[in-house]
């Protein structure tokens, strides 16, 4: 088990009578990109704000990089891109980056050097002395993304980092997130754009109405629906045989060689499938669990209400 960069235990938060978080518990391991998924109002931003000390939890504990969440010591090593980053339109891009550098205690020269470096990195180098008010929404988002790196952080907390970006810029930002993970940084990626999360994250948490519905490796969560793909030279014979089994829920033929089987008892099915294939006398070409898309996992878990992890409904 790697060191936990973020550790959240039973976080509860109320806004008046509305419960925003109902006992949220999860851990983010070092050097991973952790997708934090949920619909609008699920509690993603509330969790992030607690981690950054912008708001206080009503119950539970949260730690960042081994320090109490929101402590200055921890925040020195954190880069944060908020969902709604603010700007001063009359500042230049360089002013903005430099200023944020000084908020981390950087020396003025060092802050300027790093700001120029990052503006080049995000392809805004030519705009360094332009006013922020002249930037498009996408350019602002890229600037906000770049500021999260000014202190060379160990942990990046990115709240909807690709909003307002065109497709090319999205890909660029996602690639930069991936390279940040390769460099050894840990990323908490909060989003509801699932293909993007799938592209960069290895672990996810799904939160809904303040409850964690599922968490783990994406690969592990994909197996949850108990669906298998079987490629054979004669699927029809196999379909007829599988339909008679009590623990098989659904069988469908995809094409001339492939069929899908949805089962209720995974271990029984996996134990008996070799015998069934041999009995039918068909040639097995491929047998694998179906790679359910993250979107399907998400919709299924949210619709079903999922199995709350570390909380109560």
């Amino acid at each position, binding site marked *: 088990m790697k060191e936990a960069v973020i550790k959240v235990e039973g976080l509860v938060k109320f806004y008046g009578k509305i419960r925003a978080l109902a006992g949220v518990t999860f851990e983010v391991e070092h050097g991973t990109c952790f997708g934090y998924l949920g619909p609008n109002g699920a509690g993603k931003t509330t969790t992030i704000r607690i981690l950054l000390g*912008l708001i206080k939890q009503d119950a539970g504990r949260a730690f960042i990089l081994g320090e109490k969440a929101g402590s200055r010591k921890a925040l020195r090593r954190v880069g944060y891109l*908020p969902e709604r980053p*603010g*700007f*001063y339109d*009359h500042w230049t891009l360089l002013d903005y980056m430099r200023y*944020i550098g*000084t908020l981390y*205690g950087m020396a*003025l020269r060092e802050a300027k050097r790093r700001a120029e470096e990052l503006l080049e990195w995000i392809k805004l180098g030519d705009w360094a002395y332009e006013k922020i008010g002249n930037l498009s929404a996408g350019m602002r988002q890229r600037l906000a993304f770049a500021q999260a790196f000014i202190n060379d952080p160990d942990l990046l907390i990115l709240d909807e980092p690709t909003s307002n970006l065109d497709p090319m810029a999205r890909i660029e930002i996602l690639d930069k997130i991936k390279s940040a993970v390769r460099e050894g940084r840990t990323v908490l990626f909060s989003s509801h754009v699932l293909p993007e999360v799938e592209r960069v994250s290895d672990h996810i948490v799904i939160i809904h109405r303040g409850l964690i519905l599922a968490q783990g490796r994406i690969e592990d969560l994909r197996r949850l629906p108990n669906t298998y793909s079987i490629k054979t030279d004669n699927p029809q014979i196999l379909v007829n045989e599988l339909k008679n089994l009590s623990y098989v829920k659904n069988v469908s033929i995809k094409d001339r060689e492939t069929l899908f089987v949805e089962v209720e008892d995974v271990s029984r099915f996996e134990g008996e499938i070799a015998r069934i294939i041999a009995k039918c006398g068909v040639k097995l070409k491929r047998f694998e669990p179906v790679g359910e898309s993250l979107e399907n996992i998400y919709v299924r878990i949210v619709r079903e209400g999922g199995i709350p992890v570390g909380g109560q409904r």
Partner: protein
Amino acid sequence: MVDRDELKNKIEVFGRLLLEEMRISYRSKRFYIYLILFLLPPLFMSLWYFIFQYHIDIQTIDLKIFMQGEGAKEDILTERVNIVKGMRGISSGLYMSGLMGLLIAVISSEWVAGERHSGMHNITFSKFMSRSGILLARYIAFLIHSAIFVTIAILWVGVLVLTPLINVGLFFEAFSKTANILLIMIGVTILCILAYTSLATLFSVLSPRPMIAIIMMLIYTMVIVSIVSVIALIFGQQNPALYNLMYLSLSNDGSVVMEHFILGEEFWKSYIIPQDPYVALSVLIAVSVGGLVLACLLLETREFS
């Protein structure tokens, strides 16, 4: 026990932020409006003085010396010192007025309320530097600029009044006699600006939008100050303690303090309300420190969603 190196490091980090805050303020139009408000009146006064009044003053001084000989110099000096004393009206009327309080509110409303409104606080308040540290850096940067502007404006007008004495070789003597008056004017004006800024900062912390912070300052300067002044005037005769309500009127107290120190013990008694200048001075200091401390405490303990 605070570690010495840690303290040194904290001061260094704060110093950098302070310098950056000062540098970044030059990007704001509001900063230049503030600067103009300080420097334009002395500039106009200079123009007016050199076009219409300077030659008359020179002729009057020459005529006095011609008529009365060297003995006139003492009169001329006293007259000029009195003119410098009369300048207190500029400080109390312009730089210590409710209008200045409103302009300060417009500027300082951006410090917290403006950032909350734009979402910038999500970035600034989630960094290594503490929220109160950021606010303090902004406050001090603003105060340093204000102190420079006040000093320039008041010294400028002071020197302007004394310029006709250059020809008769009395300028430096007159300047040394009026230097303490000018210093008092500068000091009290800065103190008053400090108190206004402190209150405006507190309103900025309390408001979710900059406009609300400005309205709060407007209510303070226009409504609350007027109401308490009326209460003090009406009921103060029966209950002298109620006179103290007048001290909540910052500009009024500032000018009373100035009057007292510049014109001597007797003058302030001629005011309708017998205010105590030392209490007024204490109130100015208390508002300056108290408002800021409260703003910092609120900033550290409040939630900013």
